[in-house]
């Protein structure tokens, strides 16, 4: 009772205040989820560390993956995958609707996957939980769809903001990757949630990549060298994307059973971690060591580490592990930057470069740009981690160059390619989105006069006088079933012939082989039918009965109105 009163009070508030309150709640939940997941990961990993010297260590990733798959598939009945595409799918097709159980299922799954040794990032699970929390709060308050989309995006923003203590990155990531729309109305709750998430993170020390601010002395050589870095990072990105795609499809086609997939994938990861324990988990300690310049590994080992991190992540995620590619991308990027810097130093030994730390940071931004096609997110992440604009020039250069280079081969980001392939990525104010929002019944022209197959032409004349249209649906007199269409154009010569008037019946002159559409068809399908049949109008038949007509003219009229309604003023 109390809750209902609270809700009705809330619903009477101004929309902006509603958005603000929901934004704060979502930011809080998402921030707590992020911090909670990190604490859980630390505790669990510590618990499992005591088995490090034993042989059973190899089996931990496999065990973790099997447990994750069991829980996700049989307890929560959720899909496999990293979760971010699901959030994007939800805001582009389902107006931000997400299942309530998504708000914790991935958190638990990723806790098991990552702490047992799987190589994956905790960002995606936090993003989907935050988004699901936001979506369900919006649903509870009966918010409209635009608000729900904005609030769903807010959850994602708060997740990124609290993990990296980076509020701007949270906003930019949401706009660039999740929503694909830069409007003030959308940005408002996203910004509120981002701020709240950051506050939670600061209070509870949730920042994953703490960095002591220092001044980078960026010289012209560093900037020139960053062009080469962009090429190197683009290659790593392409390799990583390919591996992620391939391993998943190979595992799917070789092993039908999800549990066997998980076991095989886990064993591969386990074998890698014996030799390269740095590959384990989300890998932030590697990033911290690299940007803190506390790393002293050989040139070859680093290259191996980069490749193995890719393989381990691909197997972890491909085998059904819960987790994302954000943290692995950061690890690969920082290692790649470090690797490139060491190579550079060896070749141009006289030139004074700014340092491995700078290249690791820029490499991280490049990797985010390359795998996620999100250059701005990468740039702002590094700006916020380092707390300054010292590195902005190489950052800009590497981020946008990498994005462009990767786009030459991979048109869509790791989050989007699956949705694009299935035609499910509909960005706001695009043709596909507008068409997907119009429903066929909105286009229906109903003011048509039905005729019967047995009518002679003379009976048609008064109907033509009365009708405002040039076509008539033909229906069975008894059952009312749709039989065909009668076009004025087809019969006009008959109408002026007195002998024919009484001898020709409708059945003989109606068109029966016309394509029909149903109200369940999407407007996109209907348009395809228009194109393939060259028709100007198509009859709509539902359960064998004629219920109206959809014409290209009314479609155009409606399309324009829809576009006008969606235009931001």
């Amino acid at each position: 009772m109390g809750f209902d009163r609270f809700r009705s009070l809330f619903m009477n508030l101004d929309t902006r205040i509603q958005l603000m309150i929901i934004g704060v709640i979502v930011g809080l939940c998402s921030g707590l989820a992020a911090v909670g997941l990190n604490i859980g990961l630390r505790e669990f990993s510590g618990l499992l560390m005591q088995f490090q010297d034993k042989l059973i260590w190899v089996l931990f990733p496999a065990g973790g993956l099997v447990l994750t798959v069991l829980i996700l598939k049989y307890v929560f009945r959720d899909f496999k995958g990293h979760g971010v595409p699901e959030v994007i799918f939800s805001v582009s097709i389902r107006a931000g609707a997400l299942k309530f159980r998504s708000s914790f299922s991935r958190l638990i799954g990723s806790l098991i996957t990552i702490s047992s040794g799987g190589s994956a990032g905790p960002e995606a699970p936090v993003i989907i939980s935050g988004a699901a929390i936001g979506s369900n709060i919006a649903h509870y308050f009966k918010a409209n769809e635009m608000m729900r989309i904005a609030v769903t995006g807010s959850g994602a923003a708060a997740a990124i903001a609290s993990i990296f203590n980076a509020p701007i990155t949270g906003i930019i990531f949401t706009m660039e990757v999740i929503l694909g729309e830069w409007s003030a109305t959308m940005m408002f709750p996203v910004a509120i949630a981002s701020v709240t998430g950051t506050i939670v993170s600061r209070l509870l020390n949730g920042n994953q990549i703490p960095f002591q601010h220092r001044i980078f002395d960026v010289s012209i050589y560093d900037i020139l060298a960053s062009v080469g870095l962009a090429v190197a990072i683009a290659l790593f990105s392409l390799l990583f994307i390919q591996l992620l795609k391939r391993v998943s499809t190979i595992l799917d086609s070789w092993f039908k059973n999800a549990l066997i997939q998980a076991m095989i994938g886990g064993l591969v990861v386990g074998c890698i971690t014996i030799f390269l324990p740095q590959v384990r988990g989300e890998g932030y300690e590697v990033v911290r060591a690299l940007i803190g310049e506390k790393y002293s590994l050989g040139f070859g080992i680093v290259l191996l580490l980069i490749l193995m991190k890719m393989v381990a992540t691909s197997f972890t995620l491909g085998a059904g592990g819960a987790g994302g590619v954000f943290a692995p991308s950061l690890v690969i990027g920082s290692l790649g930057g470090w690797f490139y810097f060491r190579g550079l130093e060896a070749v141009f030994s006289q030139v004074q470069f700014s340092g491995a730390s700078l290249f690791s940071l820029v490499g991280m931004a490049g990797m985010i740009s390359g795998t996620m096609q999100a250059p701005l997110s990468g740039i702002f992440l590094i700006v916020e981690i380092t707390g300054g604009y010292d590195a902005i020039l190489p950052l800009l250069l590497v981020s946008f160059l990498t994005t462009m280079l990767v786009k030459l081969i991979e048109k869509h980001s790791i989050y989007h390619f699956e949705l694009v392939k299935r035609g499910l990525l509909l960005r706001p104010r695009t043709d596909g989105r507008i068409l997907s929002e119009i429903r066929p019944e909105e286009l229906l022209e109903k003011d048509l006069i039905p005729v019967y197959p047995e009518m002679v032409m003379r009976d048609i004349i008064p109907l033509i006088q009365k009708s405002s249209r040039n076509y008539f649906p033909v229906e069975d007199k008894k059952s009312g079933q749709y039989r065909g269409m009668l076009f004025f154009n087809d019969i006009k010569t008959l109408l002026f012939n007195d002998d024919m008037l009484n001898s020709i019946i409708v059945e003989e002159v109606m068109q029966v082989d016309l394509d029909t559409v149903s109200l369940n068809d999407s407007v996109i399908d209907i348009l395809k039918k228009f194109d393939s049949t060259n028709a100007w109008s198509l009859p709509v038949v539902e359960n064998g009965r004629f219920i109206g007509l959809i014409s290209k003219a009314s479609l155009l009229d409606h399309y324009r109105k829809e576009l006008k309604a969606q235009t931001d003023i």
Partner: protein
Amino acid sequence: MIFRLKSNFSVFKSSGKSVVKKTGPGLLNRHDIFVKLNQPPMKNTKYITTKEVARLMGVPLVTVSRWAHQGKIPCKLNHHGYIFNRSKIISWAKSHQFHIQETEGTIAGERKQAGVGLREAIERGGVFYDLEGNDIYSVLENAVNLIELPVDTDKERLLNELINREEIASTGIGNGVAIPHPRRPFNLSLQVPVMPVFFLKKNIDFNSVDGKPVFVIFLIFSPTTKIHLEILARLSFCLRDKKFMSLIRGQVEQDSLLKTISHIESELENTEKHGI
């Protein structure tokens, strides 16, 4: 628009010099019609329903409720459904370049317009008996002089237009009926059709299609082509009615003429509504 017309009518003056017999309300009483047309179709309350928004913006009902659901259009949700603040809707529609239809009767598919009925047109024009004249020209001249028109109307030009039209093709449509009218809507600042009826003193040759002499003239002034077509359709429906024809042959009194017409018109509207 309507205000301009109102002032036009306030300077009307009666101009018939040889009014033989005139019954019924003339043009002067047309104020009533404008009051009716002028009435706001919606109650000027603050909130309006989905249906009214759909009518106002000229979009289907389902579309408006979808927009409300999606949050594209400003609205509130209460336990009856969505309600809309009228002024907010209007400013939203204007800023999104929607054409707002403030007056009623413009929904797609609704063909009947206010004041288009035949009976009203005759009431406005009046019924005249024993019109003098021996040929088309004199008959039309007398008819034009009889009817009441806005003072600034160029009656000579109007007459010329009518004669012109007769020269192209006779408006004698057979069975002793003629329907003279200008070729294009004549600039009479009309909003509604006006149709004075004249019974001739003696039948004249009108070059009719069937060669029969004409005994009655329906003079038609329509504001638009669309309304002209509607009037023609209604009139031809009446003229096909045997009872109606025998009535006008007997130079029936105005009251029973109007009564018959409205009876036939309501019959026509009923068939339109319910199909065959």
